[in-house]
């Protein structure tokens, strides 16, 4: 039969017409018959924080197509290329299917009972021997909020360790720290609608065309805007700008301080608002003394005229929006830069009004969820470890003695790794992240992980560079296989639903956490009667009541109807998704006195300046086709087809000096390591003296050469600048 089929195909009798046929589908319209589904499941995209509504088409137990949900308020049916191909992640090669335990150096399949027993026993033994804080947990921004909420309780109250953080510290912790310092609380204050109504939009270190493409539809809809883009690299987003500011790497803080000074000197700020709603203006003003336009020009490389023009555009705007992402956050001066952005918004009252917001465009699909409910850098509901009031309230809600609630946060992610290096952390549980590709200066990370007595990696994929090092691998369900909620950048909570069952014996992270709690003996206490994420959600609604991130008016049913609702959404609030909500509309902030803080900031050069041995500045970043470390997108053939491997961007001036040609293979070397055989792109996208390497590709791992330098406040790594040199790769094949 097979031979006959082969013959029919080789001879040309059979051209697979059935597979390539088309038909009318009530949902999709006229499409390839392969894409037609029996049923459609509403959900939310599991990649970035834009939070696009999606529909998953299921046929015979498989997700055969996805489409943007035309009724979802975020994306109105549009999706980026990753979203359009997201269903392939579910059936991609390399899904983790069975629990594995390392025996005699090899990972071998075990049952779930053994896995949970072993995890709890090993963690408990290590904690008994070295103290409760010897257990560390590094999670992610990829789980649903219900899972973050459960995990936080399990870790902090069940295992009793505070050394719990997420990969969100590689991404968003700077924005969190900056918001807390300025406004007394985390929480991006604006709404996506601001992009449509602002008359000036300033994007700093934010390449949204590449990383948040669906937000560009909002810009497109706003024909009256002036778009200003500050970025050292001529990104796709820079190409959209009306005014492009080609700043030198990490000079943004000097630029913003110069703008602040111009606006204050020329009295283009809102004195009444500053007086009524902020504190620290005098100190701010004093701190700006050095930031003359000429000084800022010398730091940023921009002309004084361009800086003035930018300042006046912002200062005279009726509604001005500042959006930023990793260009600001990935910096040892990140938190201060966020504070400077907030200062700018505050003195001009570009906050709490339509079109006016200092807006951190978040990274992962549910980084916001872990910030709200996660219990790592703060107590759930944006409560503070330091506040006895907050602790008592939580103890009451949870029916626990107040001394069970920790009084200070534990180690942040980089410090957990540092503690593993110094053997203070002895066991680590990594959930839904792949630090072997995403963590800076990975040799230090490898050293730390190598020191551990027990490493558990829980992930939807195996093998990944990280699961390969694990003592135990726990297979988890991924997007499309589980239920819960995600919160996007504009604080909109959307529903995530399961379309299919996880592969093999993989389980929902939620079920894994419940099983661990059960085995640990704290299941009844922490998760009384919980069976499903909805149980966690109901408790979370109570716990968030009255907080800034108030979910009490949000129900699963309301989310299904509305597509997504922004918090704060107290009981009785409107469930009309189209009504945008903004924070601080009344000028009252989450500080003790209700006033926002104007935080003085000082620019400083980035830590590792180029020098003769390493004369170039390395910038790292992303491409639209891939997601983070490619555990999800690396197995999706259409995305791999469009972006098959890493490349290195270098200006023709530098390439000329080094005698390099386009498409040649080069090595990139820093004081810490070497990335070998990257294909060279000689381009005017980057400035002379700077190079760019995407970080997605383990084969050309940018984090071999990035440095261990962290923001002193947020602990976020300085991924964006380090000193390197480039050499032509040796022709010998490695």
């Amino acid at each position, binding site marked *: 039969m097979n031979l006959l089929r082969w013959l029919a*195909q*080789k*001879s*040309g*009798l059979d*051209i*697979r*017409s059935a597979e*390539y046929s*088309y038909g009318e589908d*009530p*949902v*999709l*319209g*006229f*499409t*390839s018959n392969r*894409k037609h589904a029996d049923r459609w499941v509403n959900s939310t995209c599991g990649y970035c924080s834009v939070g696009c509504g999606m529909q998953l088409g299921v046929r015979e137990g498989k997700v055969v*197509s*996805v*489409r*943007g949900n*035309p009724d979802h308020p975020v994306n*109105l*049916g*549009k*999706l*980026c*290329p990753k979203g*359009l*191909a997201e269903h392939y992640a579910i059936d991609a090669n390399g899904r983790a299917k069975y629990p594995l335990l390392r025996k005699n150096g090899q990972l071998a399949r075990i049952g779930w009972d053994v896995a949970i027993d072993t995890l709890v026993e090993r963690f408990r033994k290590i904690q008994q021997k070295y103290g409760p804080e010897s257990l560390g947990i590094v999670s992610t921004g990829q789980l649903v909020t219900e899972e973050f909420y459960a995990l936080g309780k399990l870790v902090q109250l069940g295992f009793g360790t505070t050394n719990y953080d997420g990969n969100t510290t590689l991404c968003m912790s700077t924005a969190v720290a900056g918001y807390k310092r300025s406004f007394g609380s985390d929480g991006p204050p604006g709404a996506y609608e601001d992009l449509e109504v602002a008359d000036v939009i300033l994007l700093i270190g934010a390449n949204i*065309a*590449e990383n948040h*493409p*669906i937000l*560009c*539809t909002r810009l*497109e809809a706003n024909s009256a805007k002036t778009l200003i883009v500050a970025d050292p690299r*001529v990104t*796709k987003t820079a*190409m959209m700008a009306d005014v492009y500011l080609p700043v030198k790497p990490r000079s943004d803080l000097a630029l913003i301080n110069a703008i602040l000074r111009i606006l204050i000197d020329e009295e283009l700020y809102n004195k009444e608002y500053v007086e009524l709603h902020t504190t620290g203006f005098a100190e701010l003003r004093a701190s700006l003394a050095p930031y003359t336009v000429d000084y800022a020009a010398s730091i940023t490389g921009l002309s004084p005229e361009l800086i003035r023009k930018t300042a006046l555009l912002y200062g005279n705007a009726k509604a001005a929006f500042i959006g930023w992402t990793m260009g600001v956050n990935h910096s040892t001066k990140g938190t201060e830069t966020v504070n400077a952005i907030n200062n700018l918004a505050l003195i001009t009252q570009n906050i709490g009004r339509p079109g006016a917001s200092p807006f951190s465009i978040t990274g992962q699909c549910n980084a916001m969820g872990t910030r709200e409910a996660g219990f790592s850098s703060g107590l759930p509901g944006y409560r503070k470890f330091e506040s006895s009031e907050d602790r008592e309230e939580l103890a009451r809600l949870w029916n626990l003695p107040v001394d069970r609630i920790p009084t200070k946060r534990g180690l942040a992610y980089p410090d957990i790794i540092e503690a593993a290096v110094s053997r203070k952390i002895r066991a680590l549980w990594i959930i839904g992240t792949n630090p072997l590709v995403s963590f800076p200066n990975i040799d230090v990370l490898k050293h730390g992980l190598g020191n551990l007595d027990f490493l558990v990696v829980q992930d939807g994929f195996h093998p990944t560079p990280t699961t390969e090092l694990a003592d135990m691998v726990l297979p988890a369900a991924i997007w499309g296989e589980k239920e819960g909620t995600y919160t996007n950048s504009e604080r909109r909570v959307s529903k995530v639903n399961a379309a299919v069952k996880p592969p093999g014996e993989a389980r929902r992270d939620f079920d894994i956490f419940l099983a661990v709690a059960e085995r640990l003996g704290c299941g009844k206490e922490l998760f009384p009667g919980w069976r499903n994420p909805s149980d966690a959600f109901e408790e979370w609604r109570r716990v968030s009541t009255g907080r800034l991130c108030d979910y009490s008016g949000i129900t699963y049913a309301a989310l299904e109807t509305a597509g997504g609702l922004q918090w704060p959404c107290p009981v009785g609030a409107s469930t009309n998704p189209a009504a945008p909500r903004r924070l601080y509309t009344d000028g009252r902030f989450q500080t003790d006195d209700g006033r926002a803080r104007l935080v003085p900031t000082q620019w400083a050069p980035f830590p590792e300046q180029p020098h003769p041995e390493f004369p170039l500045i390395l910038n790292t970043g992303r491409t*639209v086709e891939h997601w983070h470390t490619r555990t999800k997108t690396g197995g999706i*053939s*259409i*995305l*791999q*087809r*469009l*972006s*098959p*491997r890493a*490349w290195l961007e270098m200006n023709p001036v530098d390439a000329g000096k080094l005698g390099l040609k*386009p*498409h040649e293979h080069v090595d990139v070397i820093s004081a810490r390591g070497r990335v070998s055989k990257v*294909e060279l*792109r000689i*381009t*005017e*996208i980057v400035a*002379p003296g700077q190079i760019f390497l995407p970080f997605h590709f383990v084969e050309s791992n940018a984090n071999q050469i990035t440095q261990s330098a962290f923001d002193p406040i947020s602990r976020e790594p300085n991924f964006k600048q380090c000193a390197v040199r480039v050499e032509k790769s040796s022709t010998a094949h490695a």
Partner: protein
Amino acid sequence: MELPLLDRALAGNEDAFCLTTAANPADGVVASLCGTGSDIALPPPPGPGEQYRFHFDMTKCIGCKCCVVACNEQNGNPADILWRRVGEIEGGIYPDTLRHYLSMGCNHCLEPTCMTGCPVDAYSKDGPTGIVRHSADICIGCQYCTWNCSYGVPQYNPERGVVGKCDMCYGRLTQGQHPACVSACPEGAIRIETVRIAEWREEYRIDANSPGMPSADDSLSTTRITIPGRLPHDLRKVDLNRLRPEHPHWPLVVMTVLTQLSVGAFTSIWLLEVFSAHAHRAAALIALLAAAVALSASTLHLGRPIHALRALKMWRRSWLSREVLLFTLFANAAAAYSAALWIHLPGTTFLGGLTVVFGICGVGASARLYLVPGRPAWKSPFTILEFYLTAVLLGSAGANILTGASPRTQAATIIAGLATLLVGGLKITWLARSEVHERRGAYSLLFTVLSNHLRLRFLLLSAGLLMLPFAQSRWTAVPIVLALIAGEFVSRYLFFVSVVPTNIATEYLSVEAA
């Protein structure tokens, strides 16, 4: 699926001719794989003298490639086949750098070269819409259209054995739905619009051309492209430096060299019969065998060899059909001629003459078909010369075996060989000095990655020619002839692999690791 739009339109049934009426706002949104596209209406159906076309707005495109993924989802294509592609162009000096993106499916040309070249009439230009459609059922997978289209639009699907291409989502348009790319674009950079054909013929040069694209002159592309107002002079395709050898098309290497060998050999046999009255029956059989192998090999190039005979159909229009037809006639005449030689029938001179005439015409058609817009290095008289010179060189070289390397045949071979060397040298100079990127690219390939092959090619040819004067008998001539045949095979291999196709700009990185 048959959609008798044309029938209905011709019958004047206005109500039945409802290209867009299904987009009824009362029904809510237009169904779609990705995005609603409901913010814009489809243009009204094209009237007489009009057709649909794409409008691509380069000022809006952010290079996100949503259209590419949406297109593949819409059509169920594997990842290595992209009916819509996004290319990148770049120019200027930092920080005044300009990067732009070019999203392109099929341009639904007024004079589609894919269609005019097709030997089986698999292409049609739809009456009411002007959409260039392709029928997988009719297609035999010869892939000639993939060379004929200067934009590289038709793509061969080896899994099916046929070509496929963008049909502007014809099936969706007829249901009043937007094409997948239009629906998916977050920036509204791709639209469908109606164009007046006569006006476009006059004006297409203004809006159909764009940096990063081949000239619209080749086929009168209908896609209207809005390009940003200020573009630097050095704006260029980012993949310009990416030169990779093309597929060798082995069946075609074998087929072309062996048909030319056979035609040359029959010409020699016939001339020797006419002028020396020798009937070289064994030689005729060998030459016939070469023709048979050549024609069999050619079917292996087809995705659907079982339908090879369909290739005869479009002989009035397609050079490929003409080649197939003439070589079929040649092979039949050659068989008759050989048979007549063996059984001593009268009229062999006439049959031989007929064989030679069909053969010469066949080689001409065979060469002519490579003069396609999409392959500038082929599109020159050099191709015609090269193909004929192979026939003359191998035919005269073979004659040395028949005549025991007589001075006359030796002289003929050496003249043919020197002409081959001369033409080869001239062609390389012409490629090197060309202002056409694809021709210079072919030159670069020949002198970089293909330089060993090029050396081998001239080594084999020169060795054959230098040895020839020392050949004293028919048997000593044999290795020389084999060396010359090998030289022609290498030459033809280089012909196929060194060609650089025209195309739209693509992404910087190729799929295969360099």
